[in-house]
């Protein structure tokens, strides 16, 4: 644990980052920007898992394993999303949300 920093301060930080991600998710109009906001949200939750593991249950490692799995799923999700965006750009020449009406193959 960090010297002089309680769990409340770190949870405050992750809460703020999480809601910044949600703000971006709602206000952005571009698929790649939405992907960036999703990354912010996922990272805030990863830090939460790790912090709660370290501060409350330092003798087990469950939070670390879950955050490794979250990072792996996030990587897979980003790769798929980027490929979908590139394919969509080839077909409709735009990555704006309002132009994305046909995603049916």
């Amino acid at each position, binding site marked *: *644990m*960090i*010297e002089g*920093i*309680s769990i*409340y*301060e*770190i*949870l*405050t*930080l992750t*809460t*703020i*980052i999480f*809601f*910044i991600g*949600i*703000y*971006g998710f*709602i*206000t*952005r*109009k*571009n698929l*790649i*920007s939405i992907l*960036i*906001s999703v*990354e*912010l949200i996922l990272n805030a939750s990863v*830090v939460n898992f*790790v*912090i709660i593991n370290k*501060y*409350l249950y*330092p*003798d*087990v*490692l469950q939070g*670390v*394993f879950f955050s*490794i*799995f979250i*990072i*792996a*799923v*996030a990587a*897979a999700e*980003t*790769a*798929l999303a*980027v*490929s*979908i965006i590139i*394919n969509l*750009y*080839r*077909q409709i020449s735009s*990555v*704006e949300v309002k132009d994305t009406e046909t995603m049916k193959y």
Partner: protein
Amino acid sequence: MERYIFYTVAFIMIVFAIASVSSRKMLRSVIYLLFVLMGIAGIFFLIDYNFLAAIQLTVYAGGIIVLMIFSVLLVHHIEMELEMAKTSRKILTAIASLIGISVVLFTIYSNDFESVSIAKTTTTTEIGEGLLSYEAGGFILPFEVISVLLLAAMIGAIIIAKGKKLEPTKDETK
């Protein structure tokens, strides 16, 4: 000393997170996200989980950011400015987010966490043994499932990004 490092990292992360969701230039927004991710790796280093910090740096800063920069460069001009939401909608969303932050913070601060302070460094060996053990509390099944998921995502990404060129094998022979 660690206290001041944490406050600096937290300040940098919040500022760059806000910049990342409000910047009008796509590529800058991705680079600001890179700073946030590196700040998170810094927090992992501070709480002594070195392996997770290394994963964070390699997977996120090395992999995902490069992927996003590629996709931005493939679908945009570098200097293209983004269309933004309406101001009223922005303000409404900001108010909703602030309400959300206050509700969550109220819940966190009204809960009494019992912190245990054991200064124990987690080695990579322990993480590896935990991931591969098949006894109670082991994570061998999710580990294998994740490997299959990554393989499926890789093949799926290749097939989706290739688009329609995959199917007509007859046309290539003509």
